[in-house]
């Protein structure tokens, strides 16, 4: 026997997830059904702001096939949905109840729930519920003076303040001050699978099951248990396949709680599947902010201070993220630059729109747009190249780790490692920047509107503080990793299997990775903040290493060989110093251990603790062509350089980045939740809310770098999920500026054809005026 020890971490091996998904064998939320289930349909507010006078349900209840209709009175005992992150004290009154009782605060807010034998009948019945209201004045702009939210409460829920240093002195002593007014549009994750929740009360065991879970099943289990007065151990959440998450899916929503409450009340399984219109008005929106950002600079364009005052248009309630996005914006806005003095004041303002949460790269997409626009403005003011302006302000590698004296998500922002200037050099070399600029200049000279823009960013990933994994080898030698992670389709099973395979000494392809099952593991933090590969990956590595040590110790006895001469290779314990010789399979070791006195089998748990996040960083380059007549923007080429410390599976990392870029392009150019003056949402179908298609997708060139492994974990990992989106808005804005030859022209995302035509129209007016009234 001659076994070759294979390594899997760092290789682009094929995904373990793919076969069922390619053959129609996946199990998404809508694929889960129970015998005798009832179907839930929600009656949603048609008003942006109104006082409820009456909710009339008799006609709906009388429809054959309708089992019950609930209004707020039926769920009055259920508390509002709590905050999961950024629990700022005093915000409790802004939480959302599962059904509205007195006031309706956005179009789409659940008012009543119909339960029927058939989903078509449930939908028919929902249309028979009438809601009588008195309409109230609406707040649709976060910048307007705060109004009353409820008795004694204003629509400005809280103000996030972060900063350090003497900002005012820096501005007093500055060579120049650059100031910008910027706006980021309202858009969101919009996964292809809408939400779904199927609750089943197994009365035989008195266990309440919720299927269709995602992202944070353990936290949601605890909350559902608390809200319904049960012990957490009597509530199990099950994650099946998840059709995309992006931050919005898997947070606890009213519908999740309603199906559970109804399953208990009616002793029938309850199924709810969101339709797309509901999704676009009921699932978390994100992003919408306006910034007035100022920089104090010296004569060379070095930043002396940044002062940012911004508004977050939070929508109608504070959901599970409370003030998270506003907080992250403030904490991470300085990005890769040295900012000697800093002040951020973020106002969380409630409006009569769909409530907001996080969306891939929350706070960084927004903050990077503001900061990188500012860097471009600094360059223009001083008269230097935008890249040179960045170089003068980048934090140097020698300054790492770099403490910001800012905190967020309960941890201090300490940039753990990075060579920002080095990555900038690599990017420019890969893109062929000077030749590209020359080529673009030639095309512009020939009449085309083309340009390139560049933006830099720092991401944050690997949020702790801890994670748990359990690795078990069964008597057949099969390896199972049970994690408290969640999968939203990003390839968790493959990445975790690769890490386990190397630490244990088996082939990754045979490893079963379990996630999102609260009855399989007591602890789990789920999948958010690009944390899974880092936190769950390290916990898995620790558990697998322990299993390996256990297997070697047991095999040493079985093989009568010293433990330090043994290795585990491809599922067998072998003499490491001999190509041939006696060996024993992990399955045989597991069987022997199962029979041993007091044995726990071939199994181990691993905890990984990490108090700090780590900080991958990147550069985005966009090359765009503007159509002068239509105002349309075609992205011809997009480049991303991203340092992730260590890529477990480069193919998956690249997939994450390319997917993130396209979502970023959506937010930069196409996607926007628009409202009319009555607060009526205008983006309620895919014909109004424009997701990028293959036609809009540019070729994306990805440079994955591993120059700055994280010192915070042994594998050096940083998360890869969000860097594709982070600075797309900023890079595209810079590229459009360059294409149309107006520095600082883009101040608002998305840059729709209408907005760009307006910019071009103003430019031609200005030029015409200059022509008729020459100035000295």
């Amino acid at each position, binding site marked *: 026997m001659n076994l070759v020890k294979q390594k899997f971490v760092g290789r682009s091996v094929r995904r373990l997830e*793919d076969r069922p998904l390619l053959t129609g064998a*996946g199990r998404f939320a809508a694929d889960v059904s129970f015998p005798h289930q009832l179907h839930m349909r929600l009656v949603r507010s048609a008003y942006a702001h109104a006082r409820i006078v009456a909710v009339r349900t008799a006609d709906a209840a009388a429809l054959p096939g309708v089992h019950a209709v609930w209004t707020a009175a039926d769920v009055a005992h259920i508390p509002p949905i709590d905050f999961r992150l950024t629990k700022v004290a005093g915000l409790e009154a802004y939480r959302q109840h599962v059904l509205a009782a007195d006031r309706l605060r956005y179009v789409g807010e659940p008012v009543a729930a119909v339960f029927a034998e058939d989903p078509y009948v449930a939908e028919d019945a929902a249309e028979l519920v009438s809601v009588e209201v008195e309409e109230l004045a609406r707040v649709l702009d976060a910048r307007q003076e705060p109004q009353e939210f409820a008795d004694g409460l204003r629509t400005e829920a809280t103000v996030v303040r972060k900063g350090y240093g003497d900002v005012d002195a820096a501005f007093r002593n500055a060579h120049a001050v650059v100031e910008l007014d910027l706006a980021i549009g309202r858009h969101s994750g919009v*996964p292809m699978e809408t939400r779904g929740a199927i609750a089943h009360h197994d009365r035989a065991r008195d266990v309440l099951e919720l299927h269709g879970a995602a992202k944070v099943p353990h936290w949601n289990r605890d909350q559902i248990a608390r809200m319904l007065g049960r012990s957490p151990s009597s509530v199990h959440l099950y994650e099946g396949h998840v*059709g995309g998450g992006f931050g919005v899916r898997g947070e606890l929503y009213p519908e999740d709680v309603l199906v559970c409450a109804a399953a208990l009340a009616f002793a029938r399984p309850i199924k709810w599947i969101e339709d*797309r219109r509901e999704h676009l008005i009921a699932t978390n929106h994100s992003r919408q902010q306006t910034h007035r950002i100022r920089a104090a600079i010296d004569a060379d364009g070095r930043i002396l201070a940044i002062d940012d005052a911004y508004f977050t248009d939070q929508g109608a309630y504070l959901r599970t993220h409370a003030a998270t996005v506003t907080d992250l914006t403030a904490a991470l806005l300085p990005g890769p630059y040295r900012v000697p003095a800093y002040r951020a004041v973020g106002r969380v303002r409630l409006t009569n729109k769909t409530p907001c949460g996080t969306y891939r790269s929350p706070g960084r997409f927004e903050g990077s747009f503001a900061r990188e626009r500012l860097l471009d403005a600094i360059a223009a003011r001083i008269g230097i190249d935008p890249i040179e302006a960045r170089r003068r302000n980048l934090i140097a590698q020698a300054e790492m780790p770099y403490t910001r004296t800012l905190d967020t998500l309960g941890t201090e922002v300490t940039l753990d490692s990075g060579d920002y200037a080095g990555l900038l050099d690599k990017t420019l070399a890969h893109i062929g920047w000077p030749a590209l600029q020359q080529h673009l200049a030639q095309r512009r000279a020939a009449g085309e509107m083309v340009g390139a823009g560049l933006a830099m960013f720092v991401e944050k990933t690997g949020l702790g503080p801890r994670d748990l994994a359990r690795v078990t080898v069964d008597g057949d030698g099969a390896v199972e990793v049970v994690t408290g992670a969640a999968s939203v*389709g990003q390839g968790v099973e493959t990445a975790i299997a690769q890490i386990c395979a190397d630490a244990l000494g088996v082939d990754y392809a045979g490893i079963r990775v379990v996630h999102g099952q609260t009855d399989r593991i007591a602890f789990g933090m789920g999948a958010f903040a690009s944390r899974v590969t880092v936190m769950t990956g390290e916990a898995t590595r620790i558990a697998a290493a322990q299993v390996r040590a256990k297997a070697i110790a047991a095999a040493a006895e079985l093989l009568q060989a010293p433990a330090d001469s043994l290795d585990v290779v491809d599922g067998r314990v072998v003499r490491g110093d001999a190509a041939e010789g006696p060996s024993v399979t992990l399955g045989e070791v597991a069987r022997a251990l199962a029979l041993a006195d007091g044995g726990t089998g071939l199994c181990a748990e691993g905890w990984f603790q990490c108090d700090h996040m780590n900080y991958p960083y990147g550069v985005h380059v966009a090359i765009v062509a503007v159509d002068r007549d239509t105002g349309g923007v075609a992205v011809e080429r997009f480049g991303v350089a991203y340092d992730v410390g260590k890529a477990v599976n480069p193919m998956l990392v690249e*997939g994450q980045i*390319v997917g993130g870029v396209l*979502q970023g392009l959506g937010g930069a150019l196409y996607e926007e939740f628009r409202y009319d003056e009555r607060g009526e949402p205008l983006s309620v*179908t895919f014909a109004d809310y424009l997701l990028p298609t293959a036609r809009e997708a540019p070729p994306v060139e990805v440079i994955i770098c591993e120059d700055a492994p994280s010192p915070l974990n042994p594998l050096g990992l940083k998360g890869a999920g969000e860097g594709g989106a982070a600075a797309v808005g900023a890079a595209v804005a810079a590229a459009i500026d360059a294409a149309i030859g107006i520095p600082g022209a883009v101040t608002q995302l998305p840059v729709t054809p209408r907005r760009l035509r307006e910019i071009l129209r103003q430019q031609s007016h200005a030029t015409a005026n200059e022509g008729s009234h020459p100035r000295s």
Partner: protein
Amino acid sequence: MSGEIEIVLTINGRDHPVRVEPRRTLVDAIREDCGQTGTHIGCEHGVCGACTVLVDGAPVRSCLMFAVQAAGKAIRTVEGLASGEELSVLQRAFMEHHGLQCGFCTPGFLMLVTGVLEREPDIGDDDLIDVLASNLCRCTGYQNIVKAVRAAMQELRAK
């Protein structure tokens, strides 16, 4: 909305006698009445293409077709692409080129491309992008879907 109608839906060569209301969509009948849940519902207004199936060889949005309209026609879904354990050329290409992440849109893309390549095996690059632009994916950025389809086309041509 009563008055159920008895029809036979022929899915992947197998007959499914079902009783449906006239208003029942084809996708609901395929999923709920015939138990073939590989076909997904993404928008129910005919834009995203997650529910794409082949009806008499042509890609169809099964959310925009009533079940009764498909009676007696040959319906093909993602469950019919592989031969036993052996994936189709296109399915394998999606795996090899990482053309899927969450996998929710994948059955729709597979059926769309399968239908188009059967009729136009040498479809031009620009037309191919137009075809692919009729379905939505939120994870991949399309790059690897395009790669997978091109690779499958090449392999199919060589056969």
